[in-house]
Protein backbone atom coordinates (compact mmCIF):
# COMPACT_ATOMS: atom_id res chain seq x y z
CA UNK A 1 0.00 0.00 0.00
CA UNK A 2 1.36 3.32 -1.01
CA UNK A 3 1.58 5.38 2.21
CA UNK A 4 1.65 8.67 0.35
CA UNK A 5 -1.82 8.06 -1.08
CA UNK A 6 -3.44 7.67 2.34
CA UNK A 7 -4.31 10.47 4.67
CA UNK A 8 -3.78 9.58 8.29
CA UNK A 9 -6.93 10.31 10.18
CA UNK A 10 -10.31 9.12 9.04
CA UNK A 11 -13.26 8.00 11.11
CA UNK A 12 -14.80 5.75 8.46
CA UNK A 13 -11.69 3.66 7.86
CA UNK A 14 -10.20 1.55 10.61
CA UNK A 15 -6.50 2.04 9.95
CA UNK A 16 -5.62 -0.31 12.81
CA UNK A 17 -7.06 -3.31 10.93
CA UNK A 18 -5.03 -4.06 7.84
CA UNK A 19 -6.53 -6.47 5.34
CA UNK A 20 -4.73 -8.33 2.60
CA UNK A 21 -6.35 -8.97 -0.74
CA UNK A 22 -5.37 -9.98 -4.26
CA UNK A 23 -6.03 -8.19 -7.51
CA UNK A 24 -5.12 -10.13 -10.65
CA UNK A 25 -2.89 -12.33 -8.51
CA UNK A 26 -0.92 -9.48 -6.95
CA UNK A 27 -1.02 -9.32 -3.16
CA UNK A 28 -2.08 -5.90 -1.87
CA UNK A 29 -3.22 -4.33 1.37
CA UNK A 30 -6.11 -2.14 2.42
CA UNK A 31 -7.95 -1.27 5.62
CA UNK A 32 -11.20 -2.29 7.18
CA UNK A 33 -13.86 0.04 5.80
CA UNK A 34 -12.34 0.23 2.33
CA UNK A 35 -14.13 -0.85 -0.80
CA UNK A 36 -12.10 -2.75 -3.37
CA UNK A 37 -11.99 0.47 -5.41
CA UNK A 38 -10.64 2.64 -2.61
CA UNK A 39 -8.07 -0.01 -1.70
CA UNK A 40 -6.92 -0.24 -5.33
CA UNK A 41 -6.59 3.53 -5.60
CA UNK A 42 -4.59 3.57 -2.36
CA UNK A 43 -2.28 1.12 -4.11
CA UNK A 44 -2.06 3.51 -7.04
CA UNK A 45 -4.03 1.19 -9.33
CA UNK A 46 -6.46 2.89 -11.68
CA UNK A 47 -6.44 0.42 -14.58
CA UNK A 48 -8.97 -2.29 -13.71
CA UNK A 49 -10.51 -3.50 -16.94
CA UNK A 50 -11.04 -3.17 -20.64
CA UNK A 51 -13.91 -1.83 -22.64
CA UNK A 52 -16.30 -4.26 -24.24
CA UNK A 53 -15.66 -3.66 -27.93
CA UNK A 54 -12.35 -1.88 -28.52
CA UNK A 55 -10.71 -3.18 -25.34
CA UNK A 56 -9.63 0.30 -24.36
CA UNK A 57 -8.15 0.51 -20.86
CA UNK A 58 -10.71 1.29 -18.20
CA UNK A 59 -10.21 2.82 -14.75
CA UNK A 60 -12.31 3.42 -11.67
CA UNK A 61 -14.61 6.31 -12.48
CA UNK A 62 -17.10 6.68 -9.64
CA UNK A 63 -17.43 5.53 -6.06
CA UNK A 64 -20.87 3.94 -5.95
CA UNK A 65 -23.51 1.87 -7.67
CA UNK A 66 -23.24 4.00 -10.81
CA UNK A 67 -19.77 2.61 -11.63
CA UNK A 68 -19.57 1.71 -15.35
CA UNK A 69 -15.94 0.56 -15.59
CA UNK A 70 -14.54 -1.11 -12.50
CA UNK A 71 -16.45 -4.35 -12.89
CA UNK A 72 -14.58 -7.35 -11.58
CA UNK A 73 -14.83 -11.05 -10.98
CA UNK A 74 -14.67 -11.99 -7.30
CA UNK A 75 -12.97 -15.27 -6.36
CA UNK A 76 -12.22 -18.26 -8.57
CA UNK A 77 -13.92 -21.05 -6.67
CA UNK A 78 -16.11 -22.85 -9.25
CA UNK A 79 -19.18 -22.63 -7.04
CA UNK A 80 -18.68 -19.26 -5.38
CA UNK A 81 -17.11 -17.03 -8.02
CA UNK A 82 -19.14 -13.90 -8.59
CA UNK A 83 -18.96 -12.06 -11.94
CA UNK A 84 -19.77 -8.41 -12.70
CA UNK A 85 -19.24 -7.03 -9.20
CA UNK A 86 -18.60 -3.30 -8.99
CA UNK A 87 -15.30 -2.65 -7.27
CA UNK A 88 -16.86 0.50 -5.84
CA UNK A 89 -19.54 -1.49 -4.05
CA UNK A 90 -17.77 -4.54 -2.69
CA UNK A 91 -16.40 -4.01 0.80
CA UNK A 92 -12.88 -5.21 1.39
CA UNK A 93 -12.40 -8.32 3.53
CA UNK A 94 -9.41 -10.39 4.48
CA UNK A 95 -8.52 -12.71 1.61
CA UNK A 96 -10.66 -11.07 -1.09
CA UNK A 97 -9.55 -12.12 -4.56
CA UNK A 98 -10.60 -10.07 -7.55
CA UNK A 99 -9.86 -10.29 -11.27
CA UNK A 100 -10.31 -7.95 -14.19
CA UNK A 101 -12.86 -8.94 -16.78
CA UNK A 102 -12.90 -8.35 -20.52
CA UNK A 103 -9.20 -8.82 -21.06
CA UNK A 104 -6.94 -11.55 -22.37
CA UNK A 105 -4.22 -12.48 -21.64
CA UNK A 106 -4.16 -9.73 -18.98
CA UNK A 107 -5.35 -6.25 -18.23
CA UNK A 108 -2.03 -4.55 -19.04
CA UNK A 109 -1.48 -6.37 -22.32
CA UNK A 110 -4.73 -7.18 -24.05
CA UNK A 111 -4.71 -8.71 -27.54
CA UNK A 112 -8.24 -7.41 -28.14
CA UNK A 113 -6.75 -3.92 -27.84
CA UNK A 114 -5.82 -4.29 -31.49
CA UNK A 115 -9.49 -3.62 -32.18
CA UNK A 116 -8.75 -0.12 -30.95
CA UNK A 117 -6.28 0.44 -33.81
CA UNK A 118 -8.65 -1.19 -36.25
CA UNK A 119 -11.57 0.84 -34.98
CA UNK A 120 -12.26 2.62 -38.30
CA UNK A 121 -12.85 -0.88 -39.69
CA UNK A 122 -15.14 -1.89 -36.83
CA UNK A 123 -18.29 0.19 -37.16
CA UNK A 124 -21.08 0.14 -34.63
CA UNK A 125 -22.88 -3.17 -34.66
CA UNK A 126 -19.83 -4.90 -36.13
CA UNK A 127 -20.14 -8.03 -33.99
CA UNK A 128 -23.85 -8.34 -34.57
CA UNK A 129 -23.79 -7.81 -38.30
CA UNK A 130 -20.57 -9.48 -39.41
CA UNK A 131 -20.94 -12.75 -37.57
CA UNK A 132 -24.51 -13.30 -38.64
CA UNK A 133 -23.58 -14.79 -42.00
CA UNK A 134 -23.52 -17.51 -43.05
CA UNK A 135 -25.82 -18.77 -40.33
CA UNK A 136 -24.14 -22.16 -40.03
CA UNK A 137 -20.83 -20.51 -39.17
CA UNK A 138 -22.15 -19.07 -35.93
CA UNK A 139 -20.94 -22.09 -33.97
CA UNK A 140 -17.41 -21.40 -35.15
CA UNK A 141 -17.49 -17.69 -34.49
CA UNK A 142 -19.14 -18.12 -31.13
CA UNK A 143 -16.09 -19.49 -29.36
CA UNK A 144 -13.95 -16.52 -30.32
CA UNK A 145 -16.61 -13.92 -29.72
CA UNK A 146 -17.47 -15.28 -26.31
CA UNK A 147 -13.77 -15.39 -25.56
CA UNK A 148 -13.08 -11.85 -26.60
CA UNK A 149 -16.28 -10.21 -25.44
CA UNK A 150 -17.24 -12.25 -22.40
CA UNK A 151 -18.62 -10.37 -19.43
CA UNK A 152 -17.21 -12.42 -16.58
CA UNK A 153 -17.46 -16.12 -15.86
CA UNK A 154 -20.45 -17.86 -14.36
CA UNK A 155 -19.93 -20.35 -11.57
CA UNK A 156 -19.85 -23.90 -12.89
CA UNK A 157 -20.76 -25.73 -9.69
CA UNK A 158 -23.95 -25.45 -7.62
CA UNK A 159 -24.25 -22.54 -5.22
CA UNK A 160 -23.69 -23.75 -1.63
CA UNK A 161 -24.88 -20.52 -0.02
CA UNK A 162 -28.10 -20.01 1.89
CA UNK A 163 -30.55 -17.31 0.84
CA UNK A 164 -33.51 -16.01 2.78
CA UNK A 165 -36.80 -14.34 1.95
CA UNK A 166 -38.85 -11.87 3.91
CA UNK A 167 -42.25 -10.35 3.32
CA UNK A 168 -42.51 -6.97 4.95
CA UNK A 169 -45.48 -4.66 5.35
CA UNK A 170 -45.09 -1.05 6.38
CA UNK A 171 -46.82 2.30 6.26
CA UNK A 172 -43.90 4.17 4.76
CA UNK A 173 -40.84 2.93 2.93
CA UNK A 174 -37.98 5.38 2.53
CA UNK A 175 -35.45 4.44 -0.13
CA UNK A 176 -32.07 6.07 0.42
CA UNK A 177 -30.37 6.92 3.70
CA UNK A 178 -28.92 10.28 2.80
CA UNK A 179 -29.85 13.47 4.57
CA UNK A 180 -33.31 13.73 2.96
CA UNK A 181 -34.07 10.05 3.47
CA UNK A 182 -33.09 10.28 7.12
CA UNK A 183 -35.22 13.34 7.74
CA UNK A 184 -38.17 11.84 5.85
CA UNK A 185 -37.93 8.60 7.83
CA UNK A 186 -37.68 10.51 11.09
CA UNK A 187 -40.75 12.62 10.38
CA UNK A 188 -42.70 9.63 9.17
CA UNK A 189 -41.88 7.42 12.16
CA UNK A 190 -42.47 10.18 14.68
CA UNK A 191 -45.94 10.62 13.22
CA UNK A 192 -46.87 7.09 14.14
CA UNK A 193 -46.14 5.42 10.82
CA UNK A 194 -44.44 2.06 10.71
CA UNK A 195 -41.39 3.09 8.67
CA UNK A 196 -38.63 1.20 6.91
CA UNK A 197 -35.46 3.03 5.84
CA UNK A 198 -33.18 1.35 3.31
CA UNK A 199 -29.69 2.21 2.15
CA UNK A 200 -27.29 0.24 -0.01
CA UNK A 201 -24.15 1.42 1.78
CA UNK A 202 -22.82 0.03 5.05
CA UNK A 203 -23.50 3.27 6.90
CA UNK A 204 -26.21 5.88 6.67
CA UNK A 205 -25.63 9.47 5.70
CA UNK A 206 -25.11 9.53 1.93
CA UNK A 207 -22.82 12.28 0.73
CA UNK A 208 -23.57 14.50 3.73
CA UNK A 209 -21.91 12.26 6.29
CA UNK A 210 -18.48 13.25 4.97
CA UNK A 211 -19.35 16.84 4.00
CA UNK A 212 -17.12 18.98 6.18
CA UNK A 213 -16.96 22.01 3.93
CA UNK A 214 -17.43 25.38 5.69
CA UNK A 215 -19.96 26.41 3.06
CA UNK A 216 -22.32 23.63 4.12
CA UNK A 217 -23.66 24.19 7.61
CA UNK A 218 -26.85 23.51 9.51
CA UNK A 219 -27.46 25.17 12.90
CA UNK A 220 -23.93 26.61 12.67
CA UNK A 221 -22.30 23.18 12.58
CA UNK A 222 -20.82 21.33 9.66
CA UNK A 223 -23.45 19.18 8.01
CA UNK A 224 -21.57 15.96 8.71
CA UNK A 225 -21.60 16.54 12.47
CA UNK A 226 -25.19 17.68 12.40
CA UNK A 227 -26.29 14.56 10.49
CA UNK A 228 -24.26 12.28 12.72
CA UNK A 229 -26.32 13.46 15.68
CA UNK A 230 -29.56 12.94 13.78
CA UNK A 231 -28.54 9.40 12.88
CA UNK A 232 -27.83 8.64 16.54
CA UNK A 233 -31.28 9.93 17.45
CA UNK A 234 -33.29 8.08 14.82
CA UNK A 235 -31.86 4.76 15.97
CA UNK A 236 -34.02 5.11 19.08
CA UNK A 237 -37.32 5.74 17.31
CA UNK A 238 -39.48 2.73 17.94
CA UNK A 239 -41.51 2.73 14.71
CA UNK A 240 -38.44 2.95 12.54
CA UNK A 241 -36.60 -0.04 11.08
CA UNK A 242 -33.26 0.72 9.42
CA UNK A 243 -31.59 -1.64 6.98
CA UNK A 244 -28.17 -0.88 5.56
CA UNK A 245 -26.36 -2.87 2.84
CA UNK A 246 -29.81 -3.27 1.30
CA UNK A 247 -30.41 -2.13 -2.24
CA UNK A 248 -33.77 -1.72 -3.80
CA UNK A 249 -34.03 -3.59 -7.08
CA UNK A 250 -37.58 -3.28 -8.32
CA UNK A 251 -40.63 -1.11 -7.91
CA UNK A 252 -43.79 -2.95 -8.95
CA UNK A 253 -47.42 -1.92 -8.99
CA UNK A 254 -49.39 -1.48 -5.77
CA UNK A 255 -46.18 -0.39 -4.03
CA UNK A 256 -44.69 -3.86 -4.10
CA UNK A 257 -40.92 -3.47 -3.96
CA UNK A 258 -38.04 -5.92 -3.95
CA UNK A 259 -34.79 -5.28 -2.11
CA UNK A 260 -31.64 -7.31 -1.64
CA UNK A 261 -29.99 -7.30 1.75
CA UNK A 262 -26.35 -8.30 1.86
CA UNK A 263 -25.63 -10.16 5.06
CA UNK A 264 -22.20 -11.73 4.60
CA UNK A 265 -20.71 -10.46 1.35
CA UNK A 266 -18.51 -8.08 3.33
CA UNK A 267 -17.13 -10.83 5.58
CA UNK A 268 -14.14 -13.06 5.06
CA UNK A 269 -14.89 -16.63 3.95
CA UNK A 270 -14.29 -17.94 7.49
CA UNK A 271 -16.77 -15.54 9.04
CA UNK A 272 -19.45 -16.41 6.49
CA UNK A 273 -19.76 -20.09 7.34
CA UNK A 274 -23.24 -21.24 8.34
CA UNK A 275 -24.79 -17.84 7.81
CA UNK A 276 -27.41 -16.59 5.39
CA UNK A 277 -25.70 -14.80 2.53
CA UNK A 278 -28.44 -12.55 1.17
CA UNK A 279 -32.06 -11.86 1.96
CA UNK A 280 -34.72 -10.88 -0.55
CA UNK A 281 -37.14 -8.36 0.94
CA UNK A 282 -40.61 -8.35 -0.57
CA UNK A 283 -41.96 -5.07 0.66
CA UNK A 284 -45.53 -3.87 0.54
CA UNK A 285 -45.69 -0.21 1.54
CA UNK A 286 -48.64 2.15 1.79
CA UNK A 287 -46.43 5.08 0.79
CA UNK A 288 -42.98 5.12 -0.75
CA UNK A 289 -40.54 7.99 -0.45
CA UNK A 290 -37.71 7.91 -2.96
CA UNK A 291 -34.69 9.76 -1.63
CA UNK A 292 -32.03 8.36 -3.90
CA UNK A 293 -30.16 11.60 -4.50
CA UNK A 294 -28.27 12.46 -7.65
CA UNK A 295 -25.27 11.27 -9.58
CA UNK A 296 -22.73 13.54 -11.15
CA UNK A 297 -22.63 13.78 -14.92
CA UNK A 298 -19.38 13.41 -16.86
CA UNK A 299 -18.21 15.95 -19.46
CA UNK A 300 -17.65 15.11 -23.08
CA UNK A 301 -14.27 15.64 -24.76
CA UNK A 302 -11.76 13.66 -26.82
CA UNK A 303 -10.36 10.62 -25.01
CA UNK A 304 -12.37 11.20 -21.85
CA UNK A 305 -12.31 7.49 -21.02
CA UNK A 306 -8.72 7.02 -19.86
CA UNK A 307 -7.95 5.47 -16.48
CA UNK A 308 -7.44 8.28 -14.01
CA UNK A 309 -10.38 10.29 -15.31
CA UNK A 310 -13.06 10.21 -12.65
CA UNK A 311 -16.10 12.09 -11.48
CA UNK A 312 -15.06 14.98 -9.31
CA UNK A 313 -17.54 13.89 -6.62
CA UNK A 314 -15.89 10.47 -6.57
CA UNK A 315 -12.49 12.04 -5.92
CA UNK A 316 -14.10 13.93 -3.06
CA UNK A 317 -15.59 10.81 -1.54
CA UNK A 318 -12.34 8.89 -1.88
CA UNK A 319 -10.46 11.60 0.01
CA UNK A 320 -13.10 12.59 2.59
CA UNK A 321 -14.67 9.21 3.28
CA UNK A 322 -12.01 6.62 2.50
CA UNK A 323 -8.97 8.84 3.10
CA UNK A 324 -7.49 7.92 -0.28
CA UNK A 325 -5.89 10.32 -2.72
CA UNK A 326 -6.95 9.43 -6.24
CA UNK A 327 -3.76 11.02 -7.58
CA UNK A 328 -0.83 13.19 -6.67
CA UNK A 329 -1.32 15.90 -9.30
CA UNK A 330 -5.05 16.32 -9.72
CA UNK A 331 -6.80 18.52 -12.28
CA UNK A 332 -10.50 19.36 -12.21
CA UNK A 333 -12.69 20.12 -15.22
CA UNK A 334 -16.13 21.52 -14.56
CA UNK A 335 -19.13 23.53 -15.68
CA UNK A 336 -20.53 24.13 -12.19
CA UNK A 337 -19.55 24.81 -8.57
CA UNK A 338 -19.39 21.19 -7.31
CA UNK A 339 -15.82 20.63 -8.42
CA UNK A 340 -14.75 23.45 -6.10
CA UNK A 341 -15.93 21.39 -3.10
CA UNK A 342 -13.58 18.67 -4.29
CA UNK A 343 -10.79 21.21 -4.64
CA UNK A 344 -11.18 22.35 -1.05
CA UNK A 345 -11.28 18.77 0.24
CA UNK A 346 -8.11 17.94 -1.68
CA UNK A 347 -6.35 21.08 -0.50
CA UNK A 348 -7.25 20.30 3.12
CA UNK A 349 -5.67 16.87 2.76
CA UNK A 350 -2.56 18.28 1.16
CA UNK A 351 -3.09 17.05 -2.39
CA UNK A 352 -1.58 19.16 -5.14
CA UNK A 353 -4.14 20.59 -7.53
CA UNK A 354 -2.66 21.36 -10.93
CA UNK A 355 -5.51 23.63 -11.94
CA UNK A 356 -9.24 23.90 -12.36
CA UNK A 357 -10.61 24.24 -15.88
CA UNK A 358 -14.01 25.87 -15.93
CA UNK A 359 -16.16 26.23 -19.03
CA UNK A 360 -18.02 29.22 -17.50
CA UNK A 361 -16.94 32.83 -17.91
CA UNK A 362 -16.72 33.36 -14.18
CA UNK A 363 -18.45 32.43 -10.95
CA UNK A 364 -18.57 34.59 -7.88
CA UNK A 365 -20.16 32.06 -5.54
CA UNK A 366 -18.88 31.71 -1.99
CA UNK A 367 -17.19 28.40 -2.63
CA UNK A 368 -15.33 29.63 -5.71
CA UNK A 369 -14.00 32.57 -3.70
CA UNK A 370 -12.88 30.13 -1.05
CA UNK A 371 -10.90 28.20 -3.66
CA UNK A 372 -9.39 31.37 -5.10
CA UNK A 373 -8.01 32.14 -1.63
CA UNK A 374 -5.93 28.95 -1.86
CA UNK A 375 -4.09 30.24 -4.90
CA UNK A 376 -5.30 27.48 -7.19
CA UNK A 377 -4.99 28.31 -10.87
CA UNK A 378 -8.43 28.49 -12.48
CA UNK A 379 -8.70 28.57 -16.27
CA UNK A 380 -12.05 30.31 -16.82
CA UNK A 381 -13.74 29.83 -20.18
CA UNK A 382 -11.43 26.97 -21.12
CA UNK A 383 -12.12 23.44 -22.22
CA UNK A 384 -10.20 20.21 -22.52
CA UNK A 385 -9.56 19.29 -26.16
CA UNK A 386 -7.60 16.10 -25.71
CA UNK A 387 -5.90 13.81 -23.20
CA UNK A 388 -2.83 11.58 -23.33
CA UNK A 389 -1.71 8.46 -21.53
CA UNK A 390 -2.55 4.86 -22.40
CA UNK A 391 -2.90 3.00 -19.12
CA UNK A 392 -3.28 6.15 -17.05
CA UNK A 393 -3.87 9.74 -17.94
CA UNK A 394 -0.61 11.72 -18.14
CA UNK A 395 -1.34 14.99 -19.95
CA UNK A 396 -4.32 17.09 -20.87
CA UNK A 397 -4.56 19.73 -23.58
CA UNK A 398 -6.76 22.74 -22.95
CA UNK A 399 -7.87 25.66 -25.12
CA UNK A 400 -9.88 28.79 -24.59
CA UNK A 401 -13.51 28.83 -25.68
CA UNK A 402 -14.65 31.37 -28.26
CA UNK A 403 -17.04 34.06 -27.07
CA UNK A 404 -20.17 32.27 -28.23
CA UNK A 405 -18.81 28.98 -26.89
CA UNK A 406 -19.14 27.21 -30.24
CA UNK A 407 -15.41 26.74 -30.89
CA UNK A 408 -11.96 27.04 -29.41
CA UNK A 409 -9.44 29.81 -29.93
CA UNK A 410 -5.85 30.61 -29.03
CA UNK A 411 -3.00 28.28 -28.26
CA UNK A 412 -3.17 24.79 -26.84
CA UNK A 413 -1.91 24.57 -23.27
CA UNK A 414 -0.53 21.20 -22.20
CA UNK A 415 -0.78 20.28 -18.51
CA UNK A 416 0.76 17.30 -16.74
CA UNK A 417 -1.65 15.45 -14.47
CA UNK A 418 -2.18 11.94 -13.11
CA UNK A 419 -5.85 12.25 -12.28
CA UNK A 420 -8.64 14.32 -13.78
CA UNK A 421 -11.91 15.02 -12.00
CA UNK A 422 -14.84 15.95 -14.23
CA UNK A 423 -18.12 17.51 -13.22
CA UNK A 424 -20.94 18.16 -15.65
CA UNK A 425 -23.67 18.88 -13.13
CA UNK A 426 -26.04 16.53 -11.40
CA UNK A 427 -28.71 14.13 -12.56
CA UNK A 428 -31.40 13.06 -10.08
CA UNK A 429 -31.71 9.29 -9.69
CA UNK A 430 -35.26 9.03 -10.96
CA UNK A 431 -35.01 5.37 -11.99
CA UNK A 432 -37.29 4.03 -9.28
CA UNK A 433 -39.77 6.79 -9.83
CA UNK A 434 -40.05 6.04 -13.53
CA UNK A 435 -40.18 2.32 -12.82
CA UNK A 436 -43.24 2.94 -10.70
CA UNK A 437 -44.88 4.63 -13.69
CA UNK A 438 -43.88 8.20 -12.86
CA UNK A 439 -43.35 10.66 -15.69
CA UNK A 440 -40.48 13.12 -16.03
CA UNK A 441 -40.17 16.66 -17.26
CA UNK A 442 -37.14 18.68 -18.23
CA UNK A 443 -36.12 21.43 -15.83
CA UNK A 444 -34.08 23.93 -17.76
CA UNK A 445 -32.58 25.94 -14.90
CA UNK A 446 -30.28 23.05 -13.98
CA UNK A 447 -30.68 20.90 -17.11
CA UNK A 448 -32.17 17.81 -15.50
CA UNK A 449 -35.11 15.51 -15.94
CA UNK A 450 -37.18 15.77 -12.85
CA UNK A 451 -40.35 14.19 -11.49
CA UNK A 452 -43.60 15.43 -12.89
CA UNK A 453 -46.68 15.47 -10.74
CA UNK A 454 -49.74 14.20 -12.57
Amino acid at each position, binding site marked *: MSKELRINSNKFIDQTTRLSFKFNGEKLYGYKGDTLASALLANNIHLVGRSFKYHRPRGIMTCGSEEPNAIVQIGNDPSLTDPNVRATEIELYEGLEAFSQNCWPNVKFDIGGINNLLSPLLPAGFYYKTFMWPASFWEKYEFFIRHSAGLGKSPTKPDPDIYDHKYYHCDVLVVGGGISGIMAAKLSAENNNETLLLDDKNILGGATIYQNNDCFQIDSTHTNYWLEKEIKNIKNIKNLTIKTRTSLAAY*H*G*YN*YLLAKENLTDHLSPDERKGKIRQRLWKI*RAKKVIIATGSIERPLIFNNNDRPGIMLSSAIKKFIDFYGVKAGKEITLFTNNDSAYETAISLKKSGVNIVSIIDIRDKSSSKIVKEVEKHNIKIYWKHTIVNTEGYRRISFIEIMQLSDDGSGVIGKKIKLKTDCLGISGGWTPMVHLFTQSGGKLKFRSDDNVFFTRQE
Partner: protein
Amino acid sequence: MFIINCPYCGERDQTEFSSGGEAHIVRPKQPTELSDDEWAKFLFMRKNIKGIQFERWNHSHGCRKWFNVVRDTSNDKIHAVYKMGEKPPVNK
Protein backbone atom coordinates in the same frame (compact mmCIF):
# COMPACT_ATOMS: atom_id res chain seq x y z
CA MET B 1 -48.56 -8.33 -7.86
CA PHE B 2 -51.64 -6.39 -6.98
CA ILE B 3 -53.76 -6.39 -3.87
CA ILE B 4 -57.35 -7.56 -4.16
CA ASN B 5 -59.97 -6.59 -1.65
CA CYS B 6 -61.89 -9.85 -1.23
CA PRO B 7 -65.50 -8.94 -0.45
CA TYR B 8 -65.47 -11.57 2.31
CA CYS B 9 -61.93 -11.51 3.82
CA GLY B 10 -60.55 -8.07 3.03
CA GLU B 11 -57.34 -6.99 1.33
CA ARG B 12 -55.02 -9.82 0.37
CA ASP B 13 -52.04 -10.38 -1.90
CA GLN B 14 -52.75 -11.46 -5.47
CA THR B 15 -50.95 -14.78 -4.89
CA GLU B 16 -53.92 -15.95 -2.79
CA PHE B 17 -56.30 -15.59 -5.75
CA SER B 18 -56.93 -17.27 -9.09
CA SER B 19 -58.31 -15.47 -12.07
CA GLY B 20 -61.47 -16.80 -13.71
CA GLY B 21 -61.38 -14.69 -16.84
CA GLU B 22 -64.06 -12.40 -18.21
CA ALA B 23 -67.25 -11.98 -16.17
CA HIS B 24 -70.91 -11.78 -17.15
CA ILE B 25 -70.79 -14.23 -20.02
CA VAL B 26 -74.27 -15.73 -20.27
CA ARG B 27 -74.56 -19.40 -21.06
CA PRO B 28 -76.91 -19.95 -24.01
CA LYS B 29 -80.26 -21.39 -22.93
CA GLN B 30 -80.38 -24.06 -25.64
CA PRO B 31 -76.83 -25.16 -26.49
CA THR B 32 -78.14 -27.92 -28.74
CA GLU B 33 -79.68 -25.40 -31.08
CA LEU B 34 -76.43 -23.54 -31.65
CA SER B 35 -74.10 -23.97 -34.58
CA ASP B 36 -70.52 -25.03 -33.86
CA ASP B 37 -69.36 -21.48 -34.50
CA GLU B 38 -71.85 -19.97 -32.07
CA TRP B 39 -70.95 -22.53 -29.41
CA ALA B 40 -67.24 -21.91 -29.94
CA LYS B 41 -67.88 -18.21 -29.63
CA PHE B 42 -69.49 -18.72 -26.25
CA LEU B 43 -66.79 -21.11 -25.06
CA PHE B 44 -63.61 -19.50 -26.27
CA MET B 45 -64.02 -16.00 -27.58
CA ARG B 46 -63.16 -13.28 -25.02
CA LYS B 47 -62.83 -9.54 -25.39
CA ASN B 48 -59.39 -9.24 -23.78
CA ILE B 49 -59.77 -5.51 -23.39
CA LYS B 50 -56.97 -3.05 -22.89
CA GLY B 51 -58.63 -0.85 -20.32
CA ILE B 52 -61.56 -1.41 -17.99
CA GLN B 53 -62.45 -5.10 -17.88
CA PHE B 54 -64.99 -7.06 -15.82
CA GLU B 55 -63.44 -10.22 -14.42
CA ARG B 56 -64.18 -13.12 -12.15
CA TRP B 57 -61.75 -13.95 -9.40
CA ASN B 58 -61.63 -16.73 -6.84
CA HIS B 59 -60.04 -16.39 -3.42
CA SER B 60 -58.65 -19.87 -3.86
CA HIS B 61 -56.17 -19.81 -0.98
CA GLY B 62 -58.54 -18.04 1.40
CA CYS B 63 -62.32 -18.23 1.67
CA ARG B 64 -62.62 -19.97 -1.73
CA LYS B 65 -65.48 -17.71 -2.82
CA TRP B 66 -65.97 -16.38 -6.33
CA PHE B 67 -66.56 -12.68 -6.91
CA ASN B 68 -66.26 -10.01 -9.61
CA VAL B 69 -63.59 -7.39 -10.11
CA VAL B 70 -63.54 -4.31 -12.33
CA ARG B 71 -59.92 -3.90 -13.34
CA ASP B 72 -58.08 -1.61 -15.72
CA THR B 73 -55.84 -4.06 -17.53
CA SER B 74 -53.48 -1.30 -18.66
CA ASN B 75 -52.39 -0.37 -15.14
CA ASP B 76 -53.94 -3.08 -12.93
CA LYS B 77 -55.94 -0.52 -11.04
CA ILE B 78 -58.98 -2.19 -9.47
CA HIS B 79 -61.98 0.11 -9.60
CA ALA B 80 -64.55 -2.06 -7.88
CA VAL B 81 -65.14 -5.46 -6.31
CA TYR B 82 -68.60 -6.98 -6.00
CA LYS B 83 -70.15 -10.29 -5.07
CA MET B 84 -71.48 -12.87 -7.48
CA GLY B 85 -75.03 -12.10 -8.50
CA GLU B 86 -74.69 -8.43 -7.65
CA LYS B 87 -75.13 -5.79 -10.32
CA PRO B 88 -71.94 -4.35 -11.77
CA PRO B 89 -71.30 -1.02 -10.01
CA VAL B 90 -70.73 0.87 -13.26
CA ASN B 91 -72.74 0.69 -16.43
CA LYS B 92 -71.13 -1.69 -18.82
